[in-house]
């Protein structure tokens, strides 16, 4: 199983660029996900890898082999389509066997492989049926099977789960993960669903408007989004972005809502940028689970907020709070029952604050001082 490498790939339709300066290496055996909103170009990347569309410039390599100008057939890839693209005139058996027939696999071997894949995916009883007679989940598995059967060099999946209902989606997700763990095929997976991306992938690339925003493991991306786009796109409910002001100090500190947070340079990003000379407007990212509602305002002076709205979501509730001049969402337990306008105490997990430049949206290399070293308010 080779790695897949993009070297400064560009794709334009006429004069409209859809993929810009795309460089990326998918490691051997890796489960790699491209995630982004619809129209961000992620499916185009998949088509470029598959050879279904020509690149405008740049090169694509499988290992050391440039494949940029090869036909799909020569690339030895398999693909699962959002619509499954099962051949409606062929039985399940023939759908699975089709890629093998095209490669002139002898009849005996072909039978065996089809049976094997079918039993792997629980399709053994459906081989004689036509796609129209199958349920959505069964079709999805046939599509997977048709891709698996060839043992391709690279496995491409274009939103394979988006046509399933919620329950089946979670179930199939687990199945795909298990399959990958077993087969270790280099896989490029495309989805607009960040949750799917987070749960499946070894690594993720977040795409917006044809450009890569961030590449990293799911945790990297969740914990350390490189800009406001990634921060907003990854994580549910959406991250709170509260306007604030950064004072480079010394001592460096951040005014956000009614609180002030002491900052230090992020050691990981220290070298990248110079310290600004003046204070500047920033957006402060705070995830809902990092906003803690703690009893009454009296117990946390200066950290009071009032309840605006409450959305029960089963095991927990999302609570919208007015915090200073901003509105933020907080996670609360399902037994949080405070009525509207009720004042509550709020604690921010400052360790997990993200500071972004308000103008560019880029992450700024500052993190909060650990709580015990916070000066001022407790």
């Amino acid at each position: 199983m080779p790695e897949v490498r993009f070297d400064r790939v560009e794709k334009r339709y006429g004069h409209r660029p859809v993929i810009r300066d795309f460089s990326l290496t998918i490691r051997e055996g890796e489960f790699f996900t491209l995630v982004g909103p619809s129209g961000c170009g992620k499916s185009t990347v998949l088509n470029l890898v598959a050879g279904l569309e020509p690149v405008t410039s740049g090169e694509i390599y499988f290992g050391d082999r440039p494949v940029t100008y090869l036909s799909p057939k020569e690339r030895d890839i398999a693909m699962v389509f959002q619509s499954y693209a099962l051949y409606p005139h062929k039985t399940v058996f023939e759908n699975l066997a089709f890629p093998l027939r095209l490669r002139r696999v002898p009849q005996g071997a072909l039978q065996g492989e089809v049976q094997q894949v079918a039993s792997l995916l629980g399709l053994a009883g459906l081989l004689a049926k036509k796609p129209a007679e199958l349920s959505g989940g069964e079709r999805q598995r046939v599509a997977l099977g048709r891709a698996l059967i060839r043992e391709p060099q690279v496995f491409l999946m274009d939103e394979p789960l988006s046509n399933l209902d919620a329950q089946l989606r979670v179930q199939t997700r687990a199945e795909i993960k298990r399959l990958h763990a077993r087969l270790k095929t280099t896989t490029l997976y495309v989805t607009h669903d960040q949750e799917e991306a987070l749960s499946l992938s070894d690594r993720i690339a977040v795409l917006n408007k044809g450009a890569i925003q961030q590449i990293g493991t799911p945790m990297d991306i969740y914990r350390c989004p490189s800009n406001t786009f990634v921060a907003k796109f990854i994580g549910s409910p959406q991250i709170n972005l509260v306007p604030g002001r950064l004072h480079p100090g010394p001592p460096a500190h951040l005014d956000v809502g009614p609180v002030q947070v002491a900052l230090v340079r992020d050691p990981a990003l220290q070298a990248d940028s110079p310290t600004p000379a003046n204070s500047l407007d920033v957006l402060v990212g705070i995830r809902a689970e990092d906003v803690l509602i703690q009893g009454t305002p009296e117990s946390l002076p200066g950290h009071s907020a009032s309840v605006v709205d409450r959305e029960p979501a089963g095991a927990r509730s999302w609570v919208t709070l007015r915090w200073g001049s901003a509105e933020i969402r907080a996670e609360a337990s399902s037994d949080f029952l405070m009525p509207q306008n009720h004042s509550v105490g709020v604690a921010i997990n400052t360790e997990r604050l993200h500071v972004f430049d308000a103008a560019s949206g880029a992450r700024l290399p500052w993190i909060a001082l650990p709580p015990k070293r916070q000066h001022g308010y407790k």
Partner: protein
Amino acid sequence: MTSPICEQTPVKRGRRALAAALLCLTALQGGCTSQPPSGADDTDVVTLVFRHGKLSGDLRPLQDLIRRFEATHPTVRVRAEPLPSNTDQQHQIYAINLEGGASGIDVLAMDVIWIAEFARAGWIRPLDDLFGPGQRAEFFPNALEAATYGKKIWAVPWYIDAGVLYYRKDLLKKYGRRPPPTWEELIETVRIVLGGEQEPRLYGFIWQGRQYEGLICNALEFIWGNGGDVLRPDGWTDLTSPATTNAVTFMRDLIHRHAVSPSLVTTADEETSRHLFAGGRALFTRNWPYAWSLFEQEGSPVRGKVGVGPLPSFGGGPAVSTLGGWHLGIAHDSRHPEAAWQFIEFLTSPEAQKVMARKVGIAPTRRSVYHDPKVVASQPILSTLQPILERARPRPVTPFYPMVSQILQSEFSAVLAGLRPPRTALVAAERELLHTLLLERL
């Protein structure tokens, strides 16, 4: 479990069936075009293809004649193929068949107006070697004239036609009128008889005014009778001369001014006219000789009441009839010209002509037949007809006749329908005619 072969079988079967069907079709096509449908002829027996059309009346006498010919010529078989009834369509079929050779036709019956065209196009053979001056002597000279183009003779007259006037003897007698020698008198007679009869279903004078070749025949009779012409012998036109204009105006006036002809003549052809007259619905009609035996056949309401004579003239001038008729020729690419000539000789022989005259009622082209007692006894009209036929005038003998006729049909028809004044129509016709006649000089 499903075998992968199952999936393919129906497709293959379908494909095989399709291929088989294709093969069959192509085989049939090849088989049928390479040999005539009736089967190939054997070594010694020659099959002549004889195409003809427009034979009024009974077809059986002709078939009997052909059988008789086959009996006397054991090595020749004749396959007669009738053509559609419409003359234009016959012409087109000939043109498409004969153009470029390999028509499969040996003997063909041609309308007298096609001969020059067919000759110039090289579709038929000159017959000078076979049809010598001695043999020609017996035929009507005007019919021969129509078959002569470029100083060669191209066809043998089979039967001959000329426009004649039929009238109701009984009605004329009742009002003490004679068959009108002039058009003026015809108009007067119609007024008197129709005025006396008071029968709304009785028409005065029926002729052929539909837009087709028959209209040209009728019109030429008026035009020539008035001293006008369409194409002069010097090759120029005389369409806009006062004589021609007056004649065409007179035709229109018969309908619109004198009201001796109903407006339906603008849509009438020979058969319409014949049916009306045969049904006792008209006092006069202009038609070809073939109609006579049909008027006189048993069960006809006008049997015994019909008289026939020459067409009237203008103010005592000569009356002119248009020469019609059909000729027999040999296709240029015929593979059996000798046998074809024998067949033509047979069909135009006095014996055959007598049969056709007696049984079909068409006019023979040999003068001698008109004096045969048996023929005269069964078709007394022939002696009346002979002088008329003798004087009948062929339409312009030019290879471009079809074009000339097209132009004239269109304009004459417009005049009769009252769509254009005669003068305008004739000027337009002359312009188009000159455009066409340029061809003759190319």
